[in-house]
């Protein structure tokens, strides 16, 4: 046999490679550096866009308008009334959504009954609800509350129903063979399995509900964030509109990150523990 000996796979070991990567490269590719870079690029993008298009307000103008709104005392009153309407609407949607969702999840008959109405409700746009409720209930608090409720309740129902149905059949059978009493079954089996889905449903409801309350306020006349944003929009002062967007988007982001995300993570920690 006269085959040639060619070492084809003489590979570098990790200790050799480690030495080859300089420290500055590691700093630049860290997560923190990435976040800073993202923030800077967003800001740069905004500045460039606002410089190119006269209609798009730049960061300076938006901050100015924000200060204006605060000094005129328009912020807290409007924000407060929006929050009140939104809170009542979402709370109602949560209560009703959990009740209907549990029925749909537990009984096949309940599911058959509610399935079509929920599907229809899911597909009706928020704008239609806000048109209708403004006509039905006038410019008060009621129309934004009802719009928020109607737009967000189907999403809570769907999530809760999914969670309840997802309670493992095997575990239910196991509970039956061991004759676990119903109260303990609900406490130890159904509730922990469903909490995460309920939280996720509420989170979805909050995002959808904001859209509803803003739309209803936009077309209604009873004050609030949506009303104020429209006021600036109609006055062709887009800086004021952008200032309000910054305000309530900031609020949603804070709410999402510091309240909802934590609740959801806590409720789902049994599921993510293995990952």
């Amino acid at each position, binding site marked *: 046999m006269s085959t040639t000996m060619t070492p084809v796979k003489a590979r570098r070991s990790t200790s050799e490679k480690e030495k080859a990567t300089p420290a500055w490269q590691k700093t630049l590719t860290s997560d923190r550096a990435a976040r800073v870079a993202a923030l800077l690029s*967003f800001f740069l993008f905004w500045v460039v866009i606002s410089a190119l*298009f006269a209609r798009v307000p730049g960061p300076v103008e938006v901050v100015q308008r924000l200060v204006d709104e605060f000094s005129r005392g328009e912020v807290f009153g409007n924000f407060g009334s929006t929050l009140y309407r939104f809170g009542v609407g979402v709370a109602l949607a949560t209560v009703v959504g959990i009740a209907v969702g549990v029925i749909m999840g537990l009984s096949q008959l309940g599911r*058959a*009954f509610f399935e079509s109405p*929920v*599907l*229809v409700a899911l597909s*009706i746009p928020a704008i239609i609800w806000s048109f209708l409720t403004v006509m039905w209930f006038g410019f008060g608090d009621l129309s934004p509350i009802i719009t928020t409720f109607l737009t967000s309740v189907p999403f809570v129902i769907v999530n809760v129903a999914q969670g309840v149905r997802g309670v493992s059949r095997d575990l239910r059978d196991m509970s039956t063979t061991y004759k676990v009493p119903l109260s303990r079954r609900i406490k130890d089996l159904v509730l922990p399995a469903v909490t995460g889905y309920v939280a996720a449903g509420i989170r979805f409801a909050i995002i959808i509900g904001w859209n509803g309350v803003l739309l209803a306020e936009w077309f209604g006349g009873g004050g609030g964030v949506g009303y104020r944003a429209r006021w600036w*929009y109609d006055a062709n002062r887009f800086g004021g509109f952008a200032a309000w967007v910054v305000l309530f988007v900031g609020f949603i*982001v804070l709410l999402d990150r510091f309240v909802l995300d934590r609740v959801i993570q806590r409720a789902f920690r049994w599921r993510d523990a293995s990952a």
Partner: protein
Amino acid sequence: MTDQLVRTAPPTDPEAGAKRTAKRRRLRLTGLVILGWVAMFALWEYGSWWFGSRLLPRPLEVFQAGVEIVESGNFVTDFSASVLKTFAGFAVAAAVGAPIGYLMGRYNYWRAFFHDGVTIAGTIPAIVYAVMSLIAFGLSNLGPILAVALVSAPYIALNVAEGIRGVDKSLVTMSEAFGRTPQQIRREVLVPTIVPFVFAAIRMCFAVAWKVEALTEVFGGRNGVGFQIRTEYQLYDIAAVLAWMFLFIVFMLIIERLVLAKSEARLLAWRPQERSSAL
């Protein structure tokens, strides 16, 4: 206890009883589905009696308005305008969102880079995108397209990223052990893995996208379903508003079933069992 063990089969056709029960059960379920529809219409009728049919037209009036719209034939131009804008926005969203999602799923750096922005973009209410698009483009067809793209892109990016991170690592290792190139791994392992996720994203988005499209047209459009809805609303013809809406919902459901569901079924034929629907 013992009588359970020695229980004998029924004398006649052993399956007859089970069949009867199953049939009765199916009947009861269909009955309840019908009852659900009846309850919905009853509630609607009651509502129009309570508010008066000017504020909430009766189902029959809405149906007649719908027939009128269909008969007049001018719904075709508005529908096609709206659908085209929705799909155009979708295409933009996919073109931007999918690569971002790919980067986020593949590299830690880009994940950190995009994560906050994409999640925040996903929580911004649709009305903001609608108005922003109007500010950017005024009363043109580009407004709805941009709004649809802005609403859908975060969903698509997040879903693609999740899909890529969910790639079966053992298949990648297998490919590397057999000396496959990165292109081959991308084509044969990564892409088939994310297809279901992309479909999930598209279906989820589609339900949101056409609503945003219509919303933007309500705020400022020159044609399309949203434009018609605003026009009728300004004339206080609520029956026509609702008729336009329901026609559009039905139309979009048909498109969803025909186009999306079919192509999904074909692309995912390898799956052992069909995934159950969301509801």
